[in-house]
C-alpha cells in the first residue's frame, strides 16, 4: 500500500503543476473573459465592474489558491459565459468522452492483438507483408482526416450513419453507442496499426530467445509455445504502449469530437478556451489530467500482475 500512497502523492503534484500551468497560460494569451462577455457593448467602466464581480481583479496566486481549494472539495465554480455551475455542466459531458475513449480503446485491443500475433506467426508469407504495408499507411492517417473521409463516404454516400446525428445517452443509449462507433474507428485505426507492429516485433524478438528453443525441443507445438510462453512475455512492452495510447486517445478524442460534432468534453474545452471561460477550461483540463494519471496508475499495477518478475 506504500506504493499506492506514493502514486497518489505523485498524482496530486501532477494535477497541481498542470493546473498551475493552465492558470499561467490564460494569463499569457491575449483577450480576457470580460471583453468576451461584454462583446460590442464593452465600455471601460462596465468591464471594471464585471471584473470585480468575477473576482478577476485579485492577484493570480490568490485566485489560484482559492480555485484549488474549491476544486478539492468538488466545487468547480460557475461558468462565466453560461452563468451556471460548472459541475453539473461537465457531469453530462464526461460519460460521452469516456464512452468514446473506451470504445476506441476496445477497438485498438480487439484489432491489434490478434493481428499482431497473426502477422508474427506468418512472418514470411506474402499476406503478412501486405498487412505490414497496410499498417504503415494506416499509421500515417490522422483521425480527423479519416473522420472527414468516413463522414463523406459512409455518411453521405453510403448513408450507413447520419452525419451530425448524435443522440444523447439519456435519450437513446443504443443510438448513442452506435453513433460513436465510426468516430471510434477513426481514433483506433492509427493506434491499432502501431500496436500491431509493436506486438509483432515483440513476439518475434521473444521467439528467438533460448527458452523458446528449449520449449520447442521439449516437443511443444508452435501454438502452445506461442500462447503459453512467448505471448505473455511479449505483451509487457505492449501493455506499456497501450497505457500511453489510452491517455493519448482521451486527448485525441477532443479533435474527433469536432469532426463528428459530438458534444463531449472536447468541444466544451475548445469553446471555453476561445471565450476565456476560465472555470470551465480549468476544470476540464484538471479532469483530463486526472484521467491520464489514473490510467498510468492502472497500467503500473497491470504490469506487475502480468509479469511477477517486475518488482
Amino acid at each position: 500500500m506504500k506504493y499506492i500512497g506514493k502514486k497518489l502523492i505523485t498524482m496530486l503534484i501532477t494535477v497541481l503543476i498542470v493546473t498551475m500551468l493552465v492558470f499561467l497560460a490564460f494569463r499569457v494569451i491575449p483577450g480576457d473573459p470580460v471583453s468576451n462577455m461584454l462583446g460590442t457593448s464593452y465600455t471601460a467602466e462596465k468591464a471594471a465592474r464585471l471584473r470585480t464581480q468575477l473576482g478577476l481583479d485579485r492577484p493570480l496566486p490568490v485566485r489560484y489558491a482559492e480555485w484549488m481549494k474549491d476544486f478539492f472539495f468538488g466545487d468547480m465554480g460557475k461558468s462565466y459565459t453560461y452563468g451556471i455551475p460548472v459541475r453539473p455542466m461537465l457531469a453530462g459531458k464526461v460519460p460521452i468522452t469516456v464512452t468514446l475513449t473506451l470504445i476506441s480503446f476496445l477497438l485498438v485491443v480487439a484489432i491489434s492483438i490478434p493481428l499482431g500475433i497473426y502477422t508474427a506467426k506468418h512472418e514470411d508469407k506474402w499476406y503478412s507483408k501486405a498487412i505490414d504495408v497496410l499498417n504503415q499507411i494506416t499509421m500515417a492517417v490522422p483521425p480527423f482526416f479519416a473522420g472527414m473521409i468516413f463522414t463523406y463516404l459512409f455518411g453521405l454516400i453510403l448513408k450507413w450513419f447520419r452525419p451530425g446525428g448524435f443522440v444523447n445517452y439519456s435519450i437513446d443509449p443504443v443510438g448513442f453507442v452506435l453513433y460513436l462507433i465510426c468516430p471510434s474507428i477513426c481514433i483506433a485505426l492509427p493506434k491499432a496499426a502501431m500496436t500491431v507492429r509493436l506486438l509483432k516485433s515483440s513476439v518475434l524478438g521473444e521467439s528467438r530467445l533460448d527458452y523458446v528453443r528449449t520449449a520447442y525441443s521439449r516437443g511443444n507445438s508452435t501454438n502452445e509455445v506461442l500462447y503459453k510462453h512467448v505471448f505473455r512475455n511479449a505483451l509487457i512492452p505492449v501493455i506499456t504502449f497501450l497505457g500511453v495510447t489510452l491517455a493519448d486517445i482521451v486527448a485525441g478524442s477532443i479533435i474527433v469530437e469536432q469532426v463528428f460534432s459530438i458534444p463531449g468534453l472536447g468541444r466544451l474545452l475548445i469553446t471555453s478556451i476561445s471565450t476565456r471561460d476560465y472555470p470551465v477550461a480549468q476544470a476540464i483540463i484538471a479532469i483530463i489530467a486526472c484521467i491520464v494519471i489514473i490510467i498510468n496508475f492502472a497500467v503500473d499495477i497491470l504490469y506487475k500482475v502480468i509479469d511477477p518478475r517486475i518488482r
Partner: protein
Amino acid sequence: MKKRLLTILSVLLTLTIALGGCSGRKAGDSSRITVGIPQDLEDSLDPHKAAAAGTREVLFNVFEGLLKPDVNGDLIPAVAKEYTVSEDGLTYSFILREGVKFHDGSPVTAEDVKYSIEKSAGMTGEESLIAAFSNISRVDKVSDTQVDIVLKENDVDFPAYLASVNAAVIPAANAAPDVTPIGTGPYKYVSRSPQENIIMQRFDDYWGEKAYIKDVEFKVEAGDAMIMDLKGGSIDMCARVSVTQVKQLGDEFDMYEGSMNLVQALYLNNAVKPFDDLKVRQAMCYATDTQEILDLAFDGYGAPIGSSVFPAFGKYFIPELADKYPRDIAKAKELLKEAGYPNGFDMTITVPSNYIPHVDTAQVLVQQLKEVGINATIDQVEWNTWLSDVYAGRKYESTVIGVDASSMTAEALLGRFYSKADNNFTNYSNPEYDKLYEESKVTLDDSKRTELFKAMETLLAEDAANVYIQDMAEFVPMNKKYEGYVFYPLYVQDIARIKLK
C-alpha cells in the same frame, strides 16, 4: 489476461451507459424541427442579461416585451394591448392585454411588468443592456391593467427599446431566471445542454397566433459540419449560410434569400496615421471596387452601401451614397500624392479569423489597394482578441467587420460615430457631426429627425470615415418538408411562422 481486461472494460462501458439513465423519449405524432445555430448561447438565459445577438435571436421565441417587432421591423403591441404618450412626451401609459400567460401558467400582472422593466433598466442593481433605459425615471403600477413608465427626458425612440428581448416581461416570482427562463412567447424553454442544444416546445396557451411546429431543437454546429448535417438530414434549416456553402448544398433545399442587415466595411482607425488624413481615406475609397469584391468573394450577391446605414432602414437609407466613390486609380494616386504619400504606405488589416466572409473581403481589398501603391497585410486574430484589442482597446489600423443594429433606431447605427460615444471604435471625430447628433437627440419632429440622420449619414460618406462595402446577402436553406421562413430587419429567428408543407 486479455479476456479479463476485456471483461473489465466492457463492464465499465456498460456502466457508463447505464448510469447515464434512460428517460427515453416517447415517439409521438407531433411535428418537430431542428434548427442549426453556428454557436451556442454562450450567455445567461436571463433575457435581461443576454448580450450576444446570437442569444437574442433564439430567445426571441421565448420572450416578449410590452411591444415586439413585426416582420417589417415596425412595432406591434405584445404584452401591452395599447399605449398612449402624455403630451410632454415623458409618460408612457401601457394598458396590459388580458389573458396573457407565462409559460408556467400564471397570468401576467402589472407587478410582473413593473418588476421586469425595473430589472431590465438596471434599477434593481443589475447592469442594464439598454443604455437608453438610464433615462427611465420611474415605473408606476397605476391599476391592475395599467403601467406607466415615466422618463427623465424626451426620447422618441423609447418604444423601440421596449421591443427588445432585453426588455422582456418575465414573472417576478421566478427566483432563477438564469437557469429557468420563463416568458410569454410562442415557445417555452424545455432544456439546454452546453455546446449541444437548446430544446423548446410550443406554448399552447399563447395569447396570439400559435406556433405550428410543436418541438424545436436548436442544435449547436460549427462551420462545415453544419453543411454535412443539412445534407445528412440531422438539421432541417439554418440561417446565415454563405454563398460558397449554398453551392455545396445544391437544390435539395428550399433556399430563402435575404440580407444580413449589417454594415460591412473596411473600418479605419481615424485617430492613427495615415488614416487621420481625409485625403488618404478618400484615396482608399477610390482605390476599392465594391462590385469586384462582391463578384470575387460573394458570387455577385450583396447590396453595396456608401455609409453606416443599411437598406432595411427604409426612410433613413440613401442608396446614392454607394456610388460616391467609383473606382478611379488615377484620382486615388493623386490624392495620395497630395497627402504626402506618393509611393503609398504599409498598413495592417486586422480580421477575426472565424468570419470567413470578412477574411475573403480583406483578401480582395489587399489586391485592390496594391494597385495604388498601398501595401496592406492581413492579420487574422481570434474573435476574443478582436473584441479586446480592436473593439474595446482601439489598438488597430483597420479592420473588416460587419456592424449590426441592436434596435430599429437610426441611433443604433449612427450613434457610434459621435466623438464621445463609448462604442466609437473608429475614433471618428467631426464637430459638425457631433452637432447634428446632439440636435437629433432633442428633436421630436420625425421628419426633421430623419433629415438630421440623413445629414449625418451623408457626412460620414463625405468624410470617407470608412471604406464602406455592402450589406451582405444571407441564405437560409430549409428542408423541403417545411415552409414559411420569414426575414426580419433585425437579428431574429421567428420559428413560430414555420410549418410543415
